[in-house]
């Protein structure tokens, strides 16, 4: 396999920080596989994921027999799968379209079984070291970032967090702020990333840039360190303010742990909460209040219904902002003002 041309394989989006030219060989022993190790796999059968997200930002249709490169990783996605960073040489599961191979442990009943991948081996460099996403992370910053951060959290997947994050980012850009849009937790995929880029963010990054293919089951200190790395990079690049989305809902274990950790919370200046209806708004606000958090606004699917907006505002006393309002520079700017943002010094 030393002469194998890895470039003919479809490398997934979560490998985007790694130059395929570094891939020189395969280690067939999978027993020592670590989360983040790059796995060369062969598509056995097509299931839920019919396409793989490429680093170029486009999806590629998968066919049985395709070679793919995916990092080994876990997945937590209530609308799809829960999976662990474990491999089986006989066949493993593609847990996310942006990358991530592992073992599915449960799935949403509306979702097809996962696309099956036969792991052929761990990809090694010229010196025989297994390539791991963690080795290609952005450098950590020596001093803590001071950039103001609006943290976007929600009730669940598909509650409107990414829509809100992108809309707010665009509104902030229109207001003249250099805005970083970051994803602090989740599993690597280009959907959110591309939405942030399209919104005109000055800098976009996610936990993958901090070396993690997923934050699910990662220790909290590593996730916090990853967030610090992203915020430090945003600051170094001259951004004035950051909008950071945390994946899934406030009960998801890593998101919940972050929000419950007073030290972790010092990174977040203000919170925006996305939810689907008034009851979810009341419940989410109450749950956040247990950690001393009161969002500066509610948003998400809820904001599409004027009646739900009235109910939620009456129940929580917190203003609901629509997507249109987040896109409005005057509204976005007022959220920025609540963080105490000041114009950042010009980047070197």
């Amino acid at each position, binding site marked *: 396999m030393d002469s194998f041309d890895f470039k003919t394989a479809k490398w997934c989006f979560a490998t985007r920080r790694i130059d395929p030219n570094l891939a020189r060989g395969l280690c067939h022993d999978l027993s020592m596989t670590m989360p983040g190790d790059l796995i060369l796999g062969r598509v056995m059968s097509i299931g839920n994921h019919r396409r793989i997200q490429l680093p170029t930002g486009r999806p590629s249709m998968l066919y049985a027999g395709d070679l793919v490169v995916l990092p080994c990783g876990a997945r937590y996605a209530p609308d799809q799968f829960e999976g662990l960073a474990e491999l089986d040489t006989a066949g493993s599961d593609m847990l996310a379209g942006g990358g991530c191979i592992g073992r599915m442990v449960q799935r949403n009943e509306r979702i097809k079984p996962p696309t099956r991948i036969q792991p052929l081996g761990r990809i090694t460099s010229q010196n025989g070291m297994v390539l791991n996403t963690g080795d290609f992370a952005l450098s950590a910053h020596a001093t803590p970032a001071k950039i103001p951060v609006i943290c976007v959290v929600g009730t669940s997947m598909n509650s409107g967090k990414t829509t809100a994050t992108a809309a707010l980012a665009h509104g902030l850009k229109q207001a*003249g702020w250099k805005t970083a849009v970051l994803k602090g937790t989740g599993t690597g995929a280009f959907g959110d990333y591309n939405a942030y880029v399209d919104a005109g963010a000055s800098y976009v990054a996610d936990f993958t840039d901090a070396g993690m293919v997923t934050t699910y089951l990662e220790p909290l200190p590593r996730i916090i360190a990853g967030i610090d790395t992203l915020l430090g990079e945003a600051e170094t690049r001259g951004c004035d303010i950051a909008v950071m989305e945390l994946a899934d809902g406030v009960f998801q274990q890593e998101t919940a742990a972050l929000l419950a950790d007073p030290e972790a919370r010092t990174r977040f200046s203000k919170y925006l909460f996305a939810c689907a209806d008034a009851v979810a708004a009341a419940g989410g606000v109450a749950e956040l209040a247990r950690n001393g958090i009161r969002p500066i606004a509610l948003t998400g699917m809820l904001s599409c219904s004027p009646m739900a907006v009235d109910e939620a505002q009456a129940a929580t006393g917190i203003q609901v902002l629509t997507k249109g309002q987040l896109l409005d*520079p005057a509204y976005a700017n007022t959220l920025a*003002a609540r963080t105490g943002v000041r114009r950042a010094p010009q980047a070197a």
Partner: protein
Amino acid sequence: MFDAAMDVLPVTKPMTVHKLSVAVKGRVLSAEIRIPKVTTPGLPPLVALHGISRKAKSIADAFSIPCDAKGQILITPHFSRKQWRHFQQIGTYRPDRAILTLLDLVQQMGFASTEQVDIFGYSGGAQLAHRFAMLYPQRVAKLHLAAAGWYCLPDLKQAFPMGLAPSTKRLRANVPALAHNQLRNYLDLKLRVYVGAEDRHRDDALRKNPEVDDVQGRHRLARARHYCDAFRIAATARGITPDLTLTEIPNCVHSFSDCARAGLTTLVCNS
């Protein structure tokens, strides 16, 4: 939703002139950009807003010589009477978004960095200028208000649009709440207020109603003085030392050309 067009005119002396336009939600804002022969690096452009007579060219001509001397790029928007009947108000219309879009375009075309600009407004233009600055104080390097007919006061007890307490009317954009959130940053701005020392007439263009008369005064001179007092009080109450001057221009009534002849444009550029 947004689009833009540009015509480049032949080079004129003393400044190179470009014409731009932007459209926001179907309303077009045109503008002239005058580039000095030598621009001073790092100097924010000056956005000069006309009054309700909409004499953008007169404003541009009057600022050309001092801006050229200073090396400052001059941007003079023109709000057409047909599309922007009440351009000085932010609410039903969004002239603020049109200005932001124009500033974006100026930067995208490489004419100037517009992260921050000096903003000057005369009469109705001064009304728009301070309302814009109340929403986007971070975009304003220095705010110059000349002969505004009346002001939105930094006062949380007066209902909007007189102050920043909630409006009695239903608003499309909750401008008082938005401006309230920015108030501290607004009061931190460098503010230069100008008014003709003889601008005491209650002409047809002046807003006249008992509420404004009682609170702000019966004419523009009184209202400018009242606004400066209100600004100082609001700033001081928040621990901010106001950076504010009021210049009463001798022998001038409510006339931009008279004020310009008396040195208003030079005062603005040299302040």
